[in-house]
């Protein structure tokens, strides 16, 4: 399909839009609440009430407010309203009220004007909720693949790289390296063939930003990858997705087939001489495979073990060839950057952290779900304004950002802006975007112990400090949480944290001590209390009599 044909089709599809629309979320969280059946019931109901010609029932991706699912929405021409906690029994009344021009399910309505939605800035998630992830036409109708074909026909690879450099986009996988510079390095690297890899091995506990994007708008990621491939000179790409995301995998595979059939992936894309094929590779459950060199080893068919860098994958990556590896969310930003321009993107966010970031709000927070906000928004705004604060009259104690590699940030720093540098200065990291909110009933020693247990179980075992150090750290934390530890154990804990952080081979080990170090920094009194045999939050099972 050429660019001209693509634009015409988009216009035609837009004109076919029906005046009424009911949409139902069919992402993992809502599906688990029977939303697939709900969508089918609504379709039946629309047919039975003779509304087929005027009303479309659309299955859409995740709108983020997962705690209120199954989530739906109705659109009556320009007027849109959200519906929460939809049930199968609601279907007849919903359609009837829509047909009669009455307010629909008034008691279940939720305004798009609430802070949760109104304060978001959707870029990566801009089409989520308005398109069916399994229909290429839906993506084309909102301008899909036009960024790719425009790049192929109107810009040189160097110009595309320059645009991404100018946008200031930084990697959304955690480390925050400049995406444009990475592209430039791969573009200039000697060696062929080159590869483009999308890292979809999202494994942080409580985080599901990437899953949601892959399930809700798979074509967007594919388009981003294809643009990257054009920019760096690759013709084969791999999408590495963890096997625990079956729905994302199914939709991706479907999306790849659809795009290939329309000539938007594969040979001679858009009628040009650019070829790019994408293959899906599944992760087999190892967290460490999210680390780029371990991911490469896994795709190559070996054990998922990291190796020392340099050489960086940009120089020697998959099968020893120059390889570009970016995160799902990074690729998902690309079509928008090319469409609206680097200057538009650079205006979003902060000076050093441009654009937006999707966060997964989990734990003790009212609005459990996903939000996309401009970089630089404060933790307080995200947790209290968008997240709705802490439920059950409890108060905020800490927020863990960045998963097992991140740290716990206490209430004193709620007004810190969320950007790469600020979070690092607080002893945490941006990471992939997980935010676990904790209330007063959380014990910080217990939290540190939990995350250390995670890292111990996920250590690949290659390097000594991570393989054995995480076991010893866990043992010390366990001893503390049982009230059996002494001051010298605490000193040993700190010393070992430094050793593991400084000497481990890859990011997993280097960042494994972060939850311990940050809780030691902000909640030292809790550790001291445990030494005395007290767990202030009443979580830990003390095997020692408390000292009164």
């Amino acid at each position, binding site marked *: 399909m050429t660019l001209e044909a693509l634009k015409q089709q988009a216009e035609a599809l837009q004109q076919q839009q029906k005046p009424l629309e009911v949409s139902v979320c069919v992402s993992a969280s809502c599906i688990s609440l029977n939303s697939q059946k709900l969508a089918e019931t609504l379709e039946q109901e629309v047919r039975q009430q003779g509304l087929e010609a005027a009303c479309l029932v659309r299955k859409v991706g995740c709108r983020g407010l997962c705690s209120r699912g199954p989530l739906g929405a109705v659109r009556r021409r320009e007027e849109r309203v959200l519906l929460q906690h939809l049930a199968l029994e609601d279907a007849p009344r919903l359609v009837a009220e829509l047909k009669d021009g009455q307010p629909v399910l008034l008691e279940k309505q939720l305004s798009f004007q609430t802070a949760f939605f109104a304060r978001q800035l959707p870029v990566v998630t801009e089409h989520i909720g308005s398109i069916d992830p399994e229909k290429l036409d839906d993506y084309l109708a909102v301008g899909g693949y036009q960024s790719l074909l425009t790049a192929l026909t109107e810009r040189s690879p160097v110009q595309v790289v320059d645009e991404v450099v100018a946008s200031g986009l930084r990697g959304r996988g955690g480390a925050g390296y400049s995406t444009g510079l990475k592209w430039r390095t791969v573009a200039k690297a000697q060696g062929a063939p080159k590869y483009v890899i999308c890292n979809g091995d999202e494994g942080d506990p409580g985080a599901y930003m990437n899953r949601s994007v892959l399930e809700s708008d798979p074509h967007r990621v594919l388009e981003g990858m294809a643009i990257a491939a054009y920019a760096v000179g690759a013709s084969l790409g791999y999408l590495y997705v963890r096997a625990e995301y079956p729905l994302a995998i199914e939709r991706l595979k479907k999306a790849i087939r659809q795009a290939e059939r329309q000539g938007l992936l594969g040979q001679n894309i858009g009628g040009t001489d650019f070829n790019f094929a994408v293959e899906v590779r599944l992760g087999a459950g190892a967290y460490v495979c999210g680390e780029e060199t371990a991911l490469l080893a896994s795709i190559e068919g070996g054990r998922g073990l990291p190796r*020392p860098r340099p050489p960086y994958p940009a120089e020697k990556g998959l099968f020893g060839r120059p390889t570009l590896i970016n995160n799902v969310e990074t690729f998902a930003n690309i079509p928008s950057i090319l469409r609206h321009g680097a200057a538009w993107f650079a205006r979003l966010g902060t000076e050093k952290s441009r654009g937006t970031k999707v966060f997964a709000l989990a734990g003790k927070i009212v609005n459990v779900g996903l939000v996309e906000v401009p970089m630089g928004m404060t933790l307080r705004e995200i947790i209290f304004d968008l997240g709705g604060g802490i439920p059950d009259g409890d108060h905020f104690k800490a927020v863990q950002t960045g998963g097992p590699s991140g740290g716990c940030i206490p209430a004193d720093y709620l007004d810190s802006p969320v950007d790469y540098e600020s979070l690092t200065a607080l002893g945490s990291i941006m990471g992939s975007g997980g935010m676990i909110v904790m209330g007063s009933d959380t014990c910080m020693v217990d939290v540190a112990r939990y995350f250390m247990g995670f890292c111990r179980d996920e250590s690949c*075992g*290659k*390097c000594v400090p991570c393989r054995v150090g995480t076991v*010893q750290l866990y043992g010390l934390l366990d001893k503390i949480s049982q009230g059996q530890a002494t001051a010298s154990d605490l000193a040993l804990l700190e*010393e*070992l944290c430094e*050793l593991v952080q400084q000497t481990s081979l890859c990011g997993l080990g280097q960042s494994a001590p972060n939850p311990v170090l940050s809780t030691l920094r902000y909640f030292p009194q809790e550790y001291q209390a445990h030494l005395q045999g007290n767990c202030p939050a009443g979580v830990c099972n003390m095997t020692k009599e408390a000292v009164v």
Partner: protein
Amino acid sequence: MSVHTLLIDGKEVGAGSGQTLLEVARENHIPIPTLCYLEGLSGWGACRLCLMEIEGQSKLAPACTTQVWEGMRVQTSSPRLNRYRRGVLELLFAERNHVCAICVSSGHCELQTLAQSLGMDHVRFAYLYPALGVDASHERFALDHNRCVLCTRCVRVCHEVEGAHTWDIAGRGVESLLVSDLAEPWGASESCTGCGKCVQVCPTGALFLQGKAAGEMQRRTGFLPYLQRMRRGLA
């Protein structure tokens, strides 16, 4: 091949491009502790004993896998590095069962020698003492998992030099275990050629010749560079 000049511990040395820091240091008689490294095998970078401080870099770099560059300034030893090295050794000693007095390799053990030379004289961590077995099913050799430090020298020599790939690591993290073939008894391995290279490169008492008593197991690791030279000569 272009030539680089670099500064190791304040000493100016010359190196060819593509050489690793460890190779250059050893050529210049600058001692660097290593455990998973062995001349003649590919670099692995896992024991973390050869970590160096490189000026201008915040992260420590393993000498065995870091290639030299022009003007590089390297510190191979410092109170901080030595503390880390002792810490890594402590972790290793606590991981399995390294009781020297009853070990076949005592007196010829690289782990033991490293502990002595780096001044690691006691272990502050809890000994894990996992219940691991001994595989004595091979007619000439034996494997004692309790002494294994998972350096993978045996895995690499078997794969890279002998070409048999009998050995590999199964499991992950602290549960990693050296296995022959598909975790079968060594004696039942169909791929093992019985060449004994793995036994010769083992740094501890994990792989040994049957019939050796405590302190009797001596190894000849020097055959590897010779073998590599001969093979290059023939090629």
